[in-house]
C-alpha cells in the first residue's frame, strides 16, 4: 500500500478532515474545493505567487545554523527564519496565496479571524497591497493582549471587529468570521489563517505554507549535503507553520516530527490548550479532528499565554499525524515558553513570538545525538509580545537547562 500522510481525494487525512458545514456555506466551500488545485497550478498564479514571495515577503527565509544553541543542546540546530518575513511571521505565505486565489474567484471583500493578530496583520497587508476591503474578527480578550497588532491592522486600513461571544478568543473570532461569510456569500472570501476549517482549507493553507519545507530541502542540501533533517520542531495552534515545515517531509520517515502544544498553566490545571492530550475526536469549525470538549460535545474554552495557540482544536492533518504516531507532541507550559524565549534571545539574539517560544522548549525535552540535524521553525518574531516578556525580565533565567 502506498501509505501517505497527505490528504486523500475525499478531503480526509485518515479519519480526519471533511467538510461539516451548514448548507449556507456549501456553495462557497464547494466552489473553492472544485477550483483551488486548478487555480494554484496555473502558471500565471505560480508566477505571481513566487514573485510576491520573493520580492514582497523577502523569501527565501534563511536557514541559520545556531552555533550556541547547537553547542548547548549537543546537536546541529538550524533555525528556519520565518520571523524575518514581511509582517514578522509565517502567516503571510498563506495570505499571499489566498488573496491571489480570491482575485481569481472574483471576490471583492475579505474577512479573516485572528488570534495573535499575526494572521490579521498578514491579511490586512495583502488587502492593502491589492486594494481590497478587509474585515478582521478578533476576540476582545486578544484585542487587549495583542494591542500592537490591532494598531497595525488599523493603520493598514482593515476594520477590526471584536468577537464578544464565548471565551472571546480565537475560536469565537472564527465563529464570527464564518457567520459573516454566511451573511455575505457572494462577494466575500474568507481567508482562514491556519490548517483548520472545512476541506479544502486545511490542504490549501498547507500548500501555501509548504514553501517553508520546500526551501528547507535545498537549503539543507547545500549546507549538509542531504536534503532532510533528523528532526523538525514546530509549535502548533491550528498547525499551519507546522504543516508548512513538515509538508515535504510528511512521507520522509527519516525525519522525526515534533509539535509543541500550549499546556497553559499545566495540563491538569484547567487552564490549557493542549488539544491532543485533553481533546477527543469531534467536529470544530467544519472539520472532523481532535478538540477539547465536554462529554456532551460542548467545546471547552482553551487557555494559553500565547494568543496564537489559544485554540481548542488542531488541524486534521496533525490529528492524523499524532494518531498514527508519525508526529510526537510535547506540551509546553506558559512559563516554560517564557524561559525558552529568554534562552533563545540571550543565546542567539533572536526574540521569538510567544507561540514560537513553545517550540524552542522542546529542545530541552528531546535526547539528540551529536550528529543529529535539527530544524526549529521560527514561526514569528516577538515584537508583538514585548509587553508580556517585559513582565518576566527579572525572573532568574536559564532555569530551563536541567
Amino acid at each position: 500500500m502506498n501509505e501517505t500522510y497527505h490528504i486523500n481525494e475525499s478531503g480526509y487525512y485518515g479519519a480526519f478532515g471533511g467538510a461539516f458545514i451548514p448548507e449556507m456555506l456549501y456553495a462557497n466551500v464547494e466552489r473553492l474545493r472544485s477550483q483551488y488545485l486548478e487555480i494554484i497550478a496555473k502558471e500565471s498564479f505560480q508566477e505571481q505567487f513566487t514573485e510576491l514571495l520573493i520580492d514582497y515577503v523577502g523569501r527565501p527565509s534563511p536557514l541559520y545554523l545556531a552555533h550556541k544553541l547547537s553547542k548547548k543542546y549537543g546537536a546541529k540546530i538550524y533555525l528556519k527564519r520565518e520571523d524575518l518575513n514581511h509582517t514578522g511571521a509565517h502567516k503571510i505565505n498563506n495570505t499571499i496565496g489566498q488573496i491571489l486565489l480570491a482575485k481569481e474567484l472574483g471576490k471583492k471583500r475579505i474577512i479573516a479571524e485572528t488570534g495573535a493578530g499575526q494572521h490579521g496583520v498578514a491579511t490586512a497587508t495583502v488587502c492593502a497591497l491589492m486594494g481590497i476591503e478587509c474585515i478582521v474578527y478578533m476576540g476582545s480578550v486578544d484585542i487587549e493582549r495583542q494591542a500592537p497588532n490591532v494598531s497595525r491592522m488599523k493603520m493598514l486600513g482593515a476594520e477590526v471587529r471584536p468577537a464578544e461571544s464565548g471565551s472571546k478568543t480565537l475560536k469565537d473570532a472564527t465563529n464570527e468570521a464564518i457567520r459573516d461569510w454566511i451573511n455575505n456569500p457572494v462577494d466575500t472570501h474568507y481567508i482562514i489563517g491556519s490548517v483548520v476549517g472545512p476541506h479544502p482549507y486545511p490542504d490549501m493553507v498547507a500548500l501555501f505554507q509548504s514553501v517553508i519545507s520546500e526551501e528547507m530541502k535545498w537549503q539543507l542540501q547545500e549546507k549538509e549535503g542531504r536534503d532532510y533533517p533528523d528532526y523538525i520542531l514546530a509549535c502548533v495552534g491550528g498547525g499551519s507553520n507546522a504543516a508548512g515545515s513538515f509538508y515535504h517531509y510528511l512521507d520522509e520517515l527519516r525525519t522525526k516530527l515534533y509539535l509543541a502544544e500550549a499546556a497553559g498553566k499545566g495540563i491538569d490545571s484547567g487552564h490549557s490548550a493542549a488539544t491532543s492530550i485533553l481533546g477527543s475526536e469531534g467536529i470544530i469549525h467544519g472539520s472532523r479532528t481532535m478538540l477539547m470538549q465536554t462529554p456532551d460535545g460542548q467545546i471547552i474554552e482553551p487557555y494559553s499565554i500565547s494568543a496564537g495557540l489559544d485554540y481548542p482544536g488542531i488541524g486534521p492533518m496533525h490529528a492524523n499525524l499524532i494518531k498514527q504516531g508519525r508526529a510526537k507532541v510535547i506540551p509546553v507550559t506558559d512559563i516554560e515558553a517564557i524561559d525558552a524565549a529568554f534562552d533563545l534571545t540571550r543565546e542567539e539574539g533572536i526574540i521569538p513570538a510567544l507561540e514560537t517560544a513553545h517550540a524552542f522548549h522542546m529542545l530541552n525535552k528531546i535526547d539528540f545525538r551529536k550528529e543529529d540535524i535539527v530544524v526549529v521553525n521560527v514561526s514569528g518574531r516577538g515584537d508583538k509580545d514585548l509587553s508580556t516578556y517585559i513582565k518576566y525580565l527579572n525572573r532568574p533565567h536559564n532555569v530551563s537547562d536541567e
Partner: protein
Amino acid sequence: MNRIEALFTRKKKNILNIYFTAGFPELDAAVSVVTYLDQAGADIVELGIPYSDPLADGPTIQESGTLALKNGMTIDLLFQQVKKIRSQSEIPIVLMGYFNQMLQYGVEDFLDQAASNGADALIMPDLPMDVYKSDYQSMFEERSLGISFLVTPQTSDERIKRAAELSKNSFLYIISKSSITGSASNISQVQIDYFNKLEKLKADTPSLIGFGIHNKETFLTASAHANGAIIGSAFIRHLSKYGFEQDSISSFIDGILK
C-alpha cells in the same frame, strides 16, 4: 408514520413551527412552553439543543444557548423533558442541534433516546447529506425518525432535489435568504422567485420557510410559498421580554395566527 408526516397529511397550509432553545429561559421551561405552544395553536415545535459554538445561528439564539448551558442544560435532560412533554402533548417535536453533539453522545444512543422519548425528527445543519446517506440514514429510518435538510438561495437544483428526497419523513427547511438566523426584514421578489422554483423541485416533500420570519406579515407571505414557516429568534426575544407564562405564549401565537 411519525407525527410530522401525520401532520402534513392532515394540514397543508399555514403550518406554524416555533423554534426555541431548550433550557431557556429556565432549565425546565421547555416542558410548559411546548405545552402552551400546542394549546395556543402552533403546529410543530423545534427544540434547540444549546451548543457552545452554533455556527449557523445568530446572536439571539447563541445567547439563549449560552444561558441555557449556564442553567445546566444537557442532552440527557432534554430527552427527559421531551418525555414529560409527551405526557401532556402530541405536538410534533423536532430536535435541532449540531452534529458534534450527536457524535459525542453516540449516534445510535442519541437516536434511540430521541425516538423512545417521543421526538419525531432532527435537524443537524452541519451534518452533510452524503455522510447522512452513507452512515446514518438507515438508523434514522429504523426508528421512524425524520430529518430536515436545509436549502438556501445558493443551493443548486440538483442538491435541492437530494435534500428534498432525504427530508421526506420530515420537511425541507427552506432558508429564506443568505443569512444566519435572527435577521429581520421583509420578503423580496428575488426570494419569491426562489420559493417558486423550490416548489417545483421538491416534489412531494413538505417545506417550511425559516430565517427572518418574525411577524404575521412575514409568516403569511412565507406560508403562501410553502406549507408554512418557522419562527425562532423573534419568539426567543419575546420569551426574554414577556416571560414564559401561558398568557405570554398565547399572545405571541395569536399575534401570528389571528
